[in-house]
């Protein structure tokens, strides 16, 4: 039986610790610098392309130029993005956190380097042209890119790829939110999907480096700052829970909207290359009326925590417009994340909730701030499936215990409901549609992901219907098997034979009299999980694998092969999760 035997004692423990620390520091430094460059790049484009409010306000007296830029920039940007994605990204779609998760979980091969670079560049361009997409997804992918490059160094540390990528992601999130603890937790919660001693050290080091770069060396401004003096009434926690439930509904609607729009886009008949341009054009038209829908919407995010900054009516319209353009931009292929926009939509909804409370004047409350923050977290958590990281983000951004507790209540309720209604996250749902279903658990997801052809045997004795069973039994005994596949004319399998069927019969009996006309056959499209389940429910010990097109025999697979594969995966997961350094 073949088993992957992962050596854990290649290096002494101090050497391993040192190597992991160096990996963490190295990845942390590189990712931090690249992440900051990423920010600078799209902010610079925002300025040059008149998306940035600083620039736009200088043009109020030149409305024609402003309108032209508002519609033209996203449209032309969309055309370029469509072109880059179509011709330079081999997957023909923007790459993001779901690719990271898949890569880490399956230990697969990374996307081609050129594709990754092109996708990241397309994200910079999308954000630079004001597309309503997030920047956190591309940043996570940037961390993945660096991590997988470093893991190619062949340091002979088990599970190095996952550790390196998790470190890269931790650093990226740490820079993005000035939140090192959240970065470290996010990498475990969303990417690694387990906590292990080995991954913990380098991800933490990388996250800390990210924080040092973002906060100490470059002094980057935090996402938002709020003044909050504490929750004044105990009953407000019930309202926070209500926001959690509303946030879950919002998140599910948002995630389903994106998926629907993606499938609509592929059915729409608009050529792939031009889809982002169409989205950009519509975005621009909406932005003529509501310029706040353009881009990341940093200013609106900050206004949301100011009581009275929005009238309730205009706030409602802005929320609807932002949801619409975001779903459109993401569905029609702009490169960017799903997280940034839902943060904004969530905080605006929270502000709306707070504003309505204000208008009702039925009971006292602690102002708009906690409601805005709860709304933001409740809506965003289910989309990325990271409740712990979200709670920590609030804590690290606001450094306010009261606010964190309030957000925690909202996050918990939101997560409970949304995971029931939709799934753990949009990433997981996307991956499930690509055949990798993490909702089954890591072991089952991995088993279900691999095609049965990966463990297929191509060298095996071929039995014909006219063969005598004496010869068959002899041949099977010779190769140490108790079952084989019977092949008919045209090289198509017609049945399976087990030694148990041959016992007690004359050796000259024809095979066709004893064989089981097989009812179980696999193809390239059968995954190992399905094969395992099929064997479990039948008496067969072997199954033919045929070409889905021609029905011709490609190879065979024994039940024992499938079980070995299962054990191999289970062992790997166990080792990842429990091995010491």
């Amino acid at each position, binding site marked *: 039986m073949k088993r992957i035997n992962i050596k854990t004692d290649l290096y002494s423990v101090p050497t391993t610790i040192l190597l992991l620390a160096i990996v963490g520091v190295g990845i942390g430094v590189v990712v931090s610098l690249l992440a900051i460059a990423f920010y600078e790049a799209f902010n610079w484009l925002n300025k040059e392309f008149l998306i940035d*409010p600083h620039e736009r306000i200088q043009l109020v007296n030149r409305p024609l130029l402003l309108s032209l830029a508002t519609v033209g920039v996203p449209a032309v940007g969309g055309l370029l993005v469509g072109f880059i994605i179509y011709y330079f990204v081999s997957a023909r779609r923007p790459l993001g956190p779901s690719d990271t998760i898949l890569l880490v979980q399956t230990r697969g091969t990374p996307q081609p380097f050129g594709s990754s670079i092109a996708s990241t560049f397309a994200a910079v361009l999308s954000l630079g042209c004001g597309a309503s997409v997030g920047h956190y997804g591309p940043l996570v992918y940037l961390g993945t890119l660096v991590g997988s490059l470093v893991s190619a160094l062949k340091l002979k540390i088990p599970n190095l790829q996952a550790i390196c990528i998790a470190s890269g992601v931790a650093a990226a999130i740490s820079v993005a939110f000035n939140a090192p603890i959240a970065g470290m937790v996010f990498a475990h919660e969303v990417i690694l999907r387990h906590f292990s001693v080995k991954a913990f050290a380098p991800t933490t080091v990388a996250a800390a480096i990210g924080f040092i770069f973002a906060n100490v060396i470059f002094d980057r401004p935090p996402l*938002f700052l709020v003044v909050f003096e504490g929750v004044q009434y105990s009953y407000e926690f019930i309202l926070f829970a209500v926001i959690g439930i509303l946030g879950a509904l919002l998140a599910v609607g948002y995630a389903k909207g994106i998926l629907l729009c993606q499938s609509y886009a592929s059915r729409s008949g608009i050529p792939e290359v031009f889809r982002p341009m169409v989205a950009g054009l519509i975005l621009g038209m909406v932005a003529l009326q509501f310029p706040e829908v353009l881009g990341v919407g940093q200013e609106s995010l900050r206004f949301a925590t100011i*009581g009275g900054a929005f009238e309730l009516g205009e706030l409602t319209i802005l929320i609807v417009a932002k949801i619409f353009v975001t779903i459109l931009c993401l569905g029609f292929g702009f490169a960017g994340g799903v997280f940034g926009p839902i943060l904004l939509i969530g905080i605006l909804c929270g502000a709306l909730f707070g504003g309505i409370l204000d208008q009702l004047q039925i009971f006292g409350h602690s102002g708009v701030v906690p409601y805005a923050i709860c709304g933001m977290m409740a809506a965003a958590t289910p989309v990325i499936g990271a409740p712990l990281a979200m709670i920590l983000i609030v804590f690290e951004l606001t450094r306010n215990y009261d606010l964190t507790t309030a957000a925690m209540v909202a996050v918990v309720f939101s997560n409970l409901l949304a995971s029931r209604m939709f799934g753990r996250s949009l990433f997981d749902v996307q991956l499930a549609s690509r055949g990798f279903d993490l909702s089954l658990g890591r072991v089952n997801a991995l088993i279900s992901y691999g095609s049965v052809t990966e463990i297929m045997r191509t060298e095996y004795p071929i039995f014909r219907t006219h063969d005598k069973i004496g010869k068959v039994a002899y041949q099977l005994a010779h190769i140490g098997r108790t079952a084989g596949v019977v092949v008919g004319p045209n090289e198509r399998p017609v049945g399976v034979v087990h030694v148990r069927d041959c016992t007690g019969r004359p050796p000259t009996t024809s095979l066709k009299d004893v064989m089981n006309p097989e009812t179980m056959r696999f193809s390239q499209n059968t995954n190992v999980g399905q094969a395992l389940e099929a064997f479990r429910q039948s008496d067969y010990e072997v199954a033919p694998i045929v070409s889905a097109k021609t029905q011709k025999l490609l190879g065979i697979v024994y039940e024992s092969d499938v079980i070995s594969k299962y054990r191999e995966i289970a062992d790997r997961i166990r080792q990842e999760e429990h091995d010491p350094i």
Partner: protein
Amino acid sequence: MIRFSPLLMLSLILGSSTTWADNGELIISGWGGAYEQAQTISYFQQFEEEHDVRIKIRPYNGGIGPLDFLEHPGDPGWDVLDMTESDSLAACNERLLKEFDKSVLISAPDGTAATKDFFNGAIFKCGVAHVSYADVIAYDERAFPNVKPNSVADFFDIERFPGKRALPRRPIAILEWAMLSYNVPVSQIYDLLSTERGFKLVSKRLNQLKGNIVWWEQGHEPVDLLSNGEVVMASGFNGRFDDARVNHDIPISIIPDGQFVQLSVWGIHRQAQRPDLAAQFIAFATRTDRMAALSNLLSYGPTRKSALDRIHHYAGTMPLITDNYSNAELGINRRIRADSHWYSVTESIRHQWFDEWLSSTGE
């Protein structure tokens, strides 16, 4: 406590009795009040003596409109201008000022080159900053015998602190204060002020003061308005309020929250009659000893290190551009460093908004 008024009187008497060998006249802008008095003592008189020229002070109250001689034919104009940082940048962009030759600046007494001695950001394309000052909010102590206003938000709170407010008739500082009153973090003020919504929020705050605003034009007016009881709170320059309290015993308190720190910049007008003399004057006035002399009379901060080393402890506030503004991000005693770039690029939009607001309220 420093009292310079008797000294000033003496010098004025001496000055008026002296007959100058007429080497011509240098026209310099003047802001009036305690600031102009301190400048006269620290800069003007000595320069007149050393260079055999007459200095003519011509009032100037900010903005770049008055600098445009094409719009003011027959105007004698100014040779040397003492401008706010943002006005100076805007005037430079409009080519109303000459490019400044920083080689005229005089080294520190210990030999440190001037360009090293000046604080970062003090030397501009069209001028050199010579003092840092702050727009602050002050109140008449007699008006609030019990609870005292102590934050920017209190300035807008007519219910808790009733009475008239004095504000400059210019869209400056009030924008930042309105943002602070909404608890906008200092570092994000200009981001939010760059949106229409930001301006709407400012209008909303100003609307709360409707009917309670007394506009002032010249820097000395806020002190007068407070001291004669016409208003209960006023925005104005920190040095003037300090001077009123320290040197004239006027019961004025400065609210420590919301100091709006700016630079005053010397510049030479493009059409100056005597550009060389103007440059000599700027070199003289920014000499370490002269700069220190002014800051010893008035609580405006110097812009070069060697001058800062020569200032004795002053009883009032002294804003410095070297202070760490990020520490005062949230909470009480916030301070804002004016974003002069933002000011220079929003010149027209700010005035447009302000004029619209004025006409909408009939102010």
